[in-house]
């Protein structure tokens, strides 16, 4: 059948593509610092400071002092040019062996999850035995760049050899060139902010304000309950006086959320539904995940929470509105599950990153849509439904906040712990699915299984 979408292939024999007959890569554990609202406790902390703090907590938790780790990968979305070697610098500033190699990675909000996937693949292939994945972002300590006009003048001034040449270059400078530019969240090709893009998708899938507020409410409720239950005791290390995520509102209510004014999609008139309460705020924070081969974890007497089974990336053509900016996971998940002969019903826990409440709800709506399943996913009908009681059970980005590159590590470590606990209680293997949307119309999804 020819469809105007992205088809899904069937299961793949082990040993062929997708599930190489190689060894397992397991998640040993994770550590992050609490996420702070921008301009809050971490306002003066740099990406390097926060990534090192998260790394140091991980090292302390798992006794990795002086350990030469196979490789460390992390990244930041908002990155200073001086931080070209951010992850390596964090390693050098940590108690790890200085002989631990590291690389930076950048895939917008999927950065953190992609570091987990890439390093897990290296472990599966036998290239390394241990790895630390991570990510960090600061919306407070964001890079400010000079205008194009000033930048060109400075570069030309550097090349000018004589005084008249220098004066000539300087004479090009205009007052407007002196205004600094702060980073924005607008898509370069559309000029629309991420929120404005999502507002279009929200309207397209007719996601109601009430449904969004309910999802946001559940995020806060679940995150607060997880903190109360001590779930994060071995996942989070306090930093700069913060011991819980600064954005968490344990006392929020549907009534309070309903009072907030829409901030995105205001040009849609009465259709505007996205508020500060059901959108993630700008946040500062960092996360890390310790990955290993089973043999390495055993030799170091460390836990094995879950295996990183497989992952899939997808992208959509959002520029001219064929799909919504944040809808790529809608295509990635069916492909990933099909490769393993699984359906949504086979997944015990879903971690769908809450860029906006409406992002999650638009994704679920697309999967439940018969026509979308047929014409865009190449299926016989709708892809399926997600059992809401299995969705973001320990809270997600709406409550915790979303320091862009740090979100993947937060989710991977928390989900691995959740899977391990559930498997221990039920006495059966438990599967988890991670889905992270990203700027540029991209998405990365991953499948974890308890050990």
């Amino acid at each position, binding site marked *: 059948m020819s469809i105007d979408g992205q088809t899904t292939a069937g299961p793949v024999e082990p040993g062929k593509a997708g599930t190489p007959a190689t060894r397992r890569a397991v998640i040993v554990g994770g550590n992050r610092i609490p996420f702070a609202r921008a301009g809050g406790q971490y306002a*003066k*902390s*740099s990406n*390097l*400071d926060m990534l*090192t*703090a998260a790394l*140091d907590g991980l090292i302390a938790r798992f006794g990795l002092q*002086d350990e030469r780790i196979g490789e460390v990968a992390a990244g930041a979305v908002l990155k200073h040019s001086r931080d070209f070697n951010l992850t390596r610098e*964090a390693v*050098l*500033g*940590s*108690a790890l062996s*200085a002989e631990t190699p590291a690389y930076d990675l950048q895939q917008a909000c999927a950065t953190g999850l992609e570091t987990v996937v890439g390093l897990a693949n290296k472990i599966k292939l036998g290239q390394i035995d241990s790895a630390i994945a991570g990510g960090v972002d600061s919306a407070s300590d964001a890079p400010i760049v000079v205008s194009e006009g000033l930048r060109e003048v400075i570069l030309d001034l550097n090349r000018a050899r004589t005084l008249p040449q220098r004066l000539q270059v300087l004479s090009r400078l205009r007052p407007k060139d002196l205004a600094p530019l702060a980073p924005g969240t607008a898509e370069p090709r559309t000029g629309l902010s991420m929120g404005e893009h999502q507002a279009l998708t929200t309207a397209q899938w007719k996601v109601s304000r009430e449904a969004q507020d309910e999802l946001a409410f559940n995020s806060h409720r679940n995150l607060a309950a997880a903190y109360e239950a001590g779930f994060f005791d071995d996942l989070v290390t*306090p*930093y*700069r*006086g913060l011991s819980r995520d600064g954005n968490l509102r344990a006392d929020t209510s549907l009534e309070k959320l309903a009072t907030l004014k829409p901030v995105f999609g205001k040009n849609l008139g009465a259709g505007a539904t996205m508020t500060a309460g059901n959108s993630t705020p700008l946040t500062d924070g960092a996360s890390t995940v310790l990955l290993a081969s089973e043999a390495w974890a055993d030799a170091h007497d460390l836990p094995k929470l879950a295996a990183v089974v497989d992952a899939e990336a997808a992208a959509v053509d959002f520029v001219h509105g064929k799909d919504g900016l944040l809808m790529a996971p809608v295509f990635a998940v069916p492909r990933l599950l099909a490769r393993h002969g699984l359906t949504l019903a086979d997944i015990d826990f879903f971690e769908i990153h809450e860029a906006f409440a409406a992002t999650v709800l638009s994704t679920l709506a697309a999967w439940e849509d018969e026509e979308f399943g047929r014409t865009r996913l190449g299926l016989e009908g709708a892809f399926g439904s997600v059992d809401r009681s299995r969705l973001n059970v320990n809270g997600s980005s709406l409550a915790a906040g979303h320091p862009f590159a740090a979100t993947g590590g937060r989710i991977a470590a928390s989900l691995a712990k959740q899977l391990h606990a559930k498997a221990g209680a039920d006495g059966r293997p438990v599967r988890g699915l991670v889905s992270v949307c990203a700027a540029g119309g991209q998405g990365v999804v991953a499948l974890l299984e308890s050990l």
Partner: protein
Amino acid sequence: MTSTQPVILGEMPSLSKLYVNAAAQAARRRLLGTHEGSVLPAESHEVRGVTVDVATLTAYQHLIGETASDVLPAGFLHALAFPLAMSVMNRDDFPLPLLGMIHLRNSVQQRVPLHFSDTLDISARVENLRGHRAGTQVDLIAEVRRRGSGEICWLGISTYLAKGVFLPGIDKASAAPARTEFTAPDPTALWHLGVDTGRAYAAVSGDFNPIHLSVLSAKALGMRRSIAHGMYLAARALADVGPSRGDSFTWDVEFDAPVFLPCTVALEINSVEDDAGAWSRSGFVAWNPRSGRRHFHGSVGAL
């Protein structure tokens, strides 16, 4: 040990007031004749319940090259205790002139890591007045404890020289030991220190001694140019040793020649491992790459 009761100050003294007071005291002594004593005040000075300003801490960490962790850097604790130490040397019964004293060496034991949220009790006293071939030297001892605890978490001994001051009853030390020639090793690092280095460290440490701030203010005090703070240099060397030092360590530095600003300083840091391959100490030495003159040297060791 002395049984003298400590003088408990209500708050950390202001360094700028201390410097003004020291200048006034110097003038007074010039007019009225020097204080004739050769005995150090026995009382220690103490401030209880000191808290750390996290913004200052972060600025200090960034300037020195430490990552902004929640643990207080050993050099930050020195800066925190410094005004109290100055207040002891600013006493009328302190026999040496505070202004113009030269920081010869500094020795720190970071025994227990302190957290930025800890409330601290800090005490300072002077000890060991003794001769030096060029004058009289004295040790300034500072101790930092967690509030209400007897355990010393951080101990600093700063040795100062009052150049050209010879007190009655204090023997001049025997002739200077034969100076060992310093041969510069291959550098492992170069520091490019701008003319604003002193001002930047003054802003995070609170030590606005005019000899560090600008050419003019340094000249007013008889220096040819402004010089870098010794503890800024020592703290950067400590930061360069890096996290292998662990949570508790010793940190010693001897200052050989002032670092005039602006300049480039060459540095060599080496590490010694024990038989098991674990870090045991790092030595550091810094010199002027043009003249080959040694600026300071020292070591960081496992405690």
